[in-house]
Protein backbone atom coordinates (compact mmCIF):
# COMPACT_ATOMS: atom_id res chain seq x y z
CA UNK A 1 0.00 0.00 0.00
CA UNK A 2 1.48 3.36 -1.02
CA UNK A 3 1.57 6.41 1.24
CA UNK A 4 -1.08 8.00 -0.99
CA UNK A 5 -3.31 4.94 -0.51
CA UNK A 6 -2.83 5.21 3.26
CA UNK A 7 -3.59 8.94 3.19
CA UNK A 8 -6.80 8.31 1.27
CA UNK A 9 -8.01 5.80 3.85
CA UNK A 10 -6.88 7.96 6.79
CA UNK A 11 -8.95 10.84 5.38
CA UNK A 12 -11.98 8.52 5.31
CA UNK A 13 -11.31 7.44 8.92
CA UNK A 14 -10.98 11.03 10.14
CA UNK A 15 -13.97 12.20 8.12
CA UNK A 16 -16.05 9.46 9.72
CA UNK A 17 -14.67 9.80 13.27
CA UNK A 18 -14.58 13.58 13.47
CA UNK A 19 -17.22 14.63 10.98
CA UNK A 20 -14.52 16.80 9.43
CA UNK A 21 -14.68 18.23 5.93
CA UNK A 22 -12.33 16.18 3.70
CA UNK A 23 -10.87 19.42 2.34
CA UNK A 24 -9.68 20.30 5.85
CA UNK A 25 -7.97 16.92 6.38
CA UNK A 26 -4.55 17.87 5.06
CA UNK A 27 -1.20 16.43 6.24
CA UNK A 28 -0.31 19.40 8.45
CA UNK A 29 -3.73 19.66 10.11
CA UNK A 30 -3.62 19.13 13.88
CA UNK A 31 -6.27 16.69 15.06
CA UNK A 32 -7.17 18.77 18.10
CA UNK A 33 -6.37 22.34 17.02
CA UNK A 34 -7.64 22.16 13.43
CA UNK A 35 -10.07 19.23 13.30
CA UNK A 36 -11.60 19.67 16.79
CA UNK A 37 -10.83 16.13 17.99
CA UNK A 38 -11.56 15.49 21.66
CA UNK A 39 -10.03 12.81 23.84
CA UNK A 40 -12.76 10.23 23.14
CA UNK A 41 -12.23 10.77 19.40
CA UNK A 42 -8.72 9.30 19.68
CA UNK A 43 -10.20 6.00 20.83
CA UNK A 44 -12.70 6.15 17.96
CA UNK A 45 -9.84 6.83 15.53
CA UNK A 46 -7.85 3.89 16.94
CA UNK A 47 -10.84 1.54 16.54
CA UNK A 48 -11.39 2.71 12.96
CA UNK A 49 -7.69 2.42 12.06
CA UNK A 50 -7.72 -1.16 13.36
CA UNK A 51 -10.79 -1.98 11.28
CA UNK A 52 -9.52 -0.25 8.17
CA UNK A 53 -5.95 -1.54 8.15
CA UNK A 54 -6.31 -4.84 10.01
CA UNK A 55 -3.75 -4.30 12.78
CA UNK A 56 -4.08 -3.93 16.54
CA UNK A 57 -3.12 -0.77 18.39
CA UNK A 58 -1.96 -1.13 21.97
CA UNK A 59 -3.20 1.29 24.62
CA UNK A 60 -1.14 4.47 24.46
CA UNK A 61 0.65 3.42 21.27
CA UNK A 62 -0.75 6.23 19.12
CA UNK A 63 -0.32 8.77 21.89
CA UNK A 64 0.77 8.15 25.52
CA UNK A 65 -1.99 8.39 28.11
CA UNK A 66 -1.82 10.12 31.48
CA UNK A 67 1.46 11.76 30.57
CA UNK A 68 1.00 14.67 32.93
CA UNK A 69 0.28 12.42 35.92
CA UNK A 70 3.81 11.02 35.85
CA UNK A 71 6.28 13.21 37.75
CA UNK A 72 9.17 11.41 36.12
CA UNK A 73 8.00 12.81 32.78
CA UNK A 74 6.32 16.09 33.65
CA UNK A 75 6.89 18.67 36.37
CA UNK A 76 4.52 21.62 36.21
CA UNK A 77 4.41 22.69 32.58
CA UNK A 78 7.88 21.35 31.89
CA UNK A 79 8.71 18.04 30.27
CA UNK A 80 11.70 16.42 31.95
CA UNK A 81 14.64 14.88 30.14
CA UNK A 82 13.18 11.46 30.89
CA UNK A 83 9.85 12.63 29.49
CA UNK A 84 11.48 13.86 26.30
CA UNK A 85 13.33 10.56 25.92
CA UNK A 86 10.07 8.66 26.40
CA UNK A 87 8.27 10.81 23.81
CA UNK A 88 11.02 10.35 21.24
CA UNK A 89 11.07 6.60 21.84
CA UNK A 90 7.29 6.10 21.79
CA UNK A 91 6.27 8.63 19.16
CA UNK A 92 8.50 8.13 16.13
CA UNK A 93 5.45 8.91 13.98
CA UNK A 94 5.03 12.42 15.45
CA UNK A 95 7.04 15.53 14.58
CA UNK A 96 8.21 16.57 18.04
CA UNK A 97 10.09 19.70 16.92
CA UNK A 98 7.75 22.20 18.70
CA UNK A 99 8.11 20.24 21.96
CA UNK A 100 11.86 19.71 21.68
CA UNK A 101 12.28 23.44 21.28
CA UNK A 102 10.27 24.50 24.34
CA UNK A 103 9.94 21.32 26.44
CA UNK A 104 6.50 22.63 27.48
CA UNK A 105 3.52 20.33 28.08
CA UNK A 106 1.24 22.94 26.53
CA UNK A 107 2.94 22.34 23.18
CA UNK A 108 1.81 18.70 23.20
CA UNK A 109 -1.88 19.50 22.77
CA UNK A 110 -1.92 19.97 19.02
CA UNK A 111 1.08 17.90 18.09
CA UNK A 112 -0.67 14.91 16.49
CA UNK A 113 -1.38 15.79 12.87
CA UNK A 114 -2.93 13.94 9.96
CA UNK A 115 0.61 13.28 8.80
CA UNK A 116 1.37 11.67 12.20
CA UNK A 117 -1.50 9.23 11.65
CA UNK A 118 -0.27 8.39 8.14
CA UNK A 119 3.25 7.85 9.55
CA UNK A 120 1.82 5.64 12.29
CA UNK A 121 -0.11 3.48 9.82
CA UNK A 122 2.87 3.25 7.48
CA UNK A 123 5.09 2.02 10.32
CA UNK A 124 2.50 -0.47 11.57
CA UNK A 125 2.00 -1.93 8.10
CA UNK A 126 5.76 -2.12 7.50
CA UNK A 127 6.27 -3.89 10.86
CA UNK A 128 3.56 -6.40 9.95
CA UNK A 129 5.39 -7.15 6.73
Amino acid at each position, binding site marked *: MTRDDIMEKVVEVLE*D*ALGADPEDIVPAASLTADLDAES*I*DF*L*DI*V*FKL*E*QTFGFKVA*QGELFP*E*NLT*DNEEWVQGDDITEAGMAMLQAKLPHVDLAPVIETKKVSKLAGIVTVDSIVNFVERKLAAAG
Partner: protein
Amino acid sequence: MRWNWIDRILRHDPGDRLDAMKVVSLSEDHLHEHFANAPCMPSSLMIEGMAQTAGILVGAISNFERRVILAKIARAEFNADAFPGDQIRYSATLERMADAGASTKGTVEIRRADAQEFKPAGHVDLFFSHLDGDRAPDDLPDGNFVFSDNFKILLDGFADNPEC
Protein backbone atom coordinates in the same frame (compact mmCIF):
# COMPACT_ATOMS: atom_id res chain seq x y z
CA MET B 1 -38.04 11.81 37.57
CA ARG B 2 -37.83 8.34 36.07
CA TRP B 3 -35.38 8.08 33.20
CA ASN B 4 -36.13 4.64 31.84
CA TRP B 5 -36.48 4.61 28.07
CA ILE B 6 -36.68 0.86 27.65
CA ASP B 7 -39.34 -1.36 29.20
CA ARG B 8 -38.06 -4.89 28.70
CA ILE B 9 -34.93 -6.70 27.68
CA LEU B 10 -35.81 -9.29 25.06
CA ARG B 11 -32.47 -10.89 24.37
CA HIS B 12 -29.00 -10.75 25.88
CA ASP B 13 -26.01 -12.48 24.40
CA PRO B 14 -23.33 -11.29 26.87
CA GLY B 15 -20.56 -9.32 25.24
CA ASP B 16 -22.24 -9.52 21.85
CA ARG B 17 -25.84 -8.33 21.56
CA LEU B 18 -28.73 -6.95 23.57
CA ASP B 19 -32.29 -6.30 22.35
CA ALA B 20 -34.77 -4.17 24.28
CA MET B 21 -38.38 -3.10 23.84
CA LYS B 22 -40.07 0.23 24.47
CA VAL B 23 -43.84 0.66 24.39
CA VAL B 24 -44.90 4.20 23.53
CA SER B 25 -47.78 5.42 25.66
CA LEU B 26 -49.82 8.59 25.41
CA SER B 27 -49.55 8.90 29.19
CA GLU B 28 -45.90 9.91 28.80
CA ASP B 29 -45.59 13.64 29.39
CA HIS B 30 -43.15 14.35 26.59
CA LEU B 31 -45.68 13.32 23.94
CA HIS B 32 -47.95 16.19 24.93
CA GLU B 33 -45.36 18.73 23.96
CA HIS B 34 -43.93 16.91 20.98
CA PHE B 35 -46.31 17.80 19.47
CA ALA B 36 -49.55 19.10 20.99
CA ASN B 37 -51.87 17.80 18.28
CA ALA B 38 -49.57 15.23 16.70
CA PRO B 39 -47.78 13.27 19.45
CA CYS B 40 -44.68 11.36 18.36
CA MET B 41 -41.62 10.06 20.18
CA PRO B 42 -38.71 12.50 19.78
CA SER B 43 -35.73 10.99 17.96
CA SER B 44 -33.48 12.26 20.74
CA LEU B 45 -35.28 9.98 23.19
CA MET B 46 -34.92 7.05 20.80
CA ILE B 47 -31.18 7.75 20.88
CA GLU B 48 -31.43 7.63 24.69
CA GLY B 49 -33.30 4.32 24.42
CA MET B 50 -30.50 2.91 22.33
CA ALA B 51 -27.91 4.37 24.74
CA GLN B 52 -29.58 2.52 27.62
CA THR B 53 -29.79 -0.69 25.58
CA ALA B 54 -26.19 -0.54 24.44
CA GLY B 55 -25.02 0.80 27.80
CA ILE B 56 -26.40 -2.25 29.59
CA LEU B 57 -24.73 -4.49 27.00
CA VAL B 58 -21.37 -2.82 27.72
CA GLY B 59 -21.90 -2.50 31.48
CA ALA B 60 -22.84 -6.15 31.89
CA ILE B 61 -19.41 -7.19 30.59
CA SER B 62 -17.86 -5.88 33.83
CA ASN B 63 -20.88 -6.97 35.87
CA PHE B 64 -21.63 -3.24 36.22
CA GLU B 65 -18.42 -2.68 38.15
CA ARG B 66 -17.23 -0.01 35.69
CA ARG B 67 -18.88 3.35 35.02
CA VAL B 68 -20.01 3.29 31.39
CA ILE B 69 -20.66 6.79 30.05
CA LEU B 70 -22.11 7.69 26.67
CA ALA B 71 -19.28 9.64 25.09
CA LYS B 72 -20.21 10.07 21.47
CA ILE B 73 -23.07 9.56 19.04
CA ALA B 74 -21.19 8.35 16.00
CA ARG B 75 -24.30 7.97 13.86
CA ALA B 76 -28.02 8.57 14.31
CA GLU B 77 -30.37 8.20 11.37
CA PHE B 78 -34.12 7.74 11.52
CA ASN B 79 -36.58 7.18 8.72
CA ALA B 80 -39.76 6.68 10.74
CA ASP B 81 -41.49 8.17 13.78
CA ALA B 82 -43.01 6.24 16.68
CA PHE B 83 -46.53 7.11 17.82
CA PRO B 84 -48.58 6.22 20.91
CA GLY B 85 -49.45 2.53 20.83
CA ASP B 86 -46.34 1.61 18.82
CA GLN B 87 -43.53 -0.63 20.02
CA ILE B 88 -39.87 0.21 19.48
CA ARG B 89 -37.24 -2.54 19.37
CA TYR B 90 -33.63 -1.54 19.96
CA SER B 91 -30.92 -4.03 18.95
CA ALA B 92 -27.38 -3.19 20.01
CA THR B 93 -24.29 -5.16 19.05
CA LEU B 94 -20.82 -4.70 20.48
CA GLU B 95 -18.41 -3.54 17.80
CA ARG B 96 -15.20 -3.00 19.78
CA MET B 97 -14.23 -3.18 23.42
CA ALA B 98 -11.10 -1.73 25.00
CA ASP B 99 -9.99 -0.70 28.45
CA ALA B 100 -10.81 2.93 27.69
CA GLY B 101 -14.24 2.34 26.18
CA ALA B 102 -16.43 0.55 23.69
CA SER B 103 -18.27 1.14 20.44
CA THR B 104 -21.66 -0.29 19.55
CA LYS B 105 -23.81 -0.47 16.45
CA GLY B 106 -27.57 -0.40 16.73
CA THR B 107 -30.75 -0.79 14.74
CA VAL B 108 -34.14 0.66 15.63
CA GLU B 109 -37.36 -1.00 14.49
CA ILE B 110 -40.97 0.04 15.02
CA ARG B 111 -44.12 -2.06 15.10
CA ARG B 112 -47.27 -0.07 14.58
CA ALA B 113 -50.10 -0.63 17.02
CA ASP B 114 -52.14 -2.31 14.26
CA ALA B 115 -49.30 -4.24 12.57
CA GLN B 116 -47.82 -7.71 13.03
CA GLU B 117 -44.28 -7.01 11.89
CA PHE B 118 -41.49 -4.69 13.00
CA LYS B 119 -40.12 -2.44 10.27
CA PRO B 120 -36.69 -0.77 10.13
CA ALA B 121 -36.78 2.76 11.53
CA GLY B 122 -33.17 3.79 11.93
CA HIS B 123 -29.58 3.24 12.99
CA VAL B 124 -27.78 4.53 16.08
CA ASP B 125 -24.07 3.85 16.55
CA LEU B 126 -22.56 4.90 19.87
CA PHE B 127 -19.31 5.27 21.71
CA PHE B 128 -18.95 4.68 25.44
CA SER B 129 -16.13 5.67 27.74
CA HIS B 130 -15.13 3.88 30.93
CA LEU B 131 -15.13 6.70 33.46
CA ASP B 132 -12.94 5.12 36.09
CA GLY B 133 -9.34 4.84 37.17
CA ASP B 134 -7.22 7.64 35.70
CA ARG B 135 -10.08 8.78 33.48
CA ALA B 136 -12.37 9.67 36.40
CA PRO B 137 -12.51 13.27 37.64
CA ASP B 138 -11.77 13.68 41.34
CA ASP B 139 -15.23 15.07 42.13
CA LEU B 140 -17.27 12.10 40.90
CA PRO B 141 -19.76 10.71 43.40
CA ASP B 142 -18.83 7.41 45.01
CA GLY B 143 -20.11 4.16 43.62
CA ASN B 144 -21.54 3.38 40.25
CA PHE B 145 -24.10 6.13 39.64
CA VAL B 146 -24.61 5.05 36.03
CA PHE B 147 -26.48 1.82 36.55
CA SER B 148 -29.43 2.10 38.87
CA ASP B 149 -31.20 -0.89 40.33
CA ASN B 150 -33.88 -0.37 37.67
CA PHE B 151 -31.44 -1.37 34.95
CA LYS B 152 -30.32 -4.42 36.90
CA ILE B 153 -33.96 -5.43 37.40
CA LEU B 154 -34.49 -5.06 33.66
CA LEU B 155 -31.55 -7.32 32.95
CA ASP B 156 -32.54 -9.90 35.54
CA GLY B 157 -36.13 -9.93 34.22
CA PHE B 158 -39.29 -9.16 36.11
CA ALA B 159 -40.49 -11.56 38.76
CA ASP B 160 -43.20 -13.85 37.55
CA ASN B 161 -45.72 -13.00 40.24
CA PRO B 162 -49.27 -14.14 39.49
CA GLU B 163 -50.62 -11.88 42.22
CA CYS B 164 -49.46 -8.72 40.45
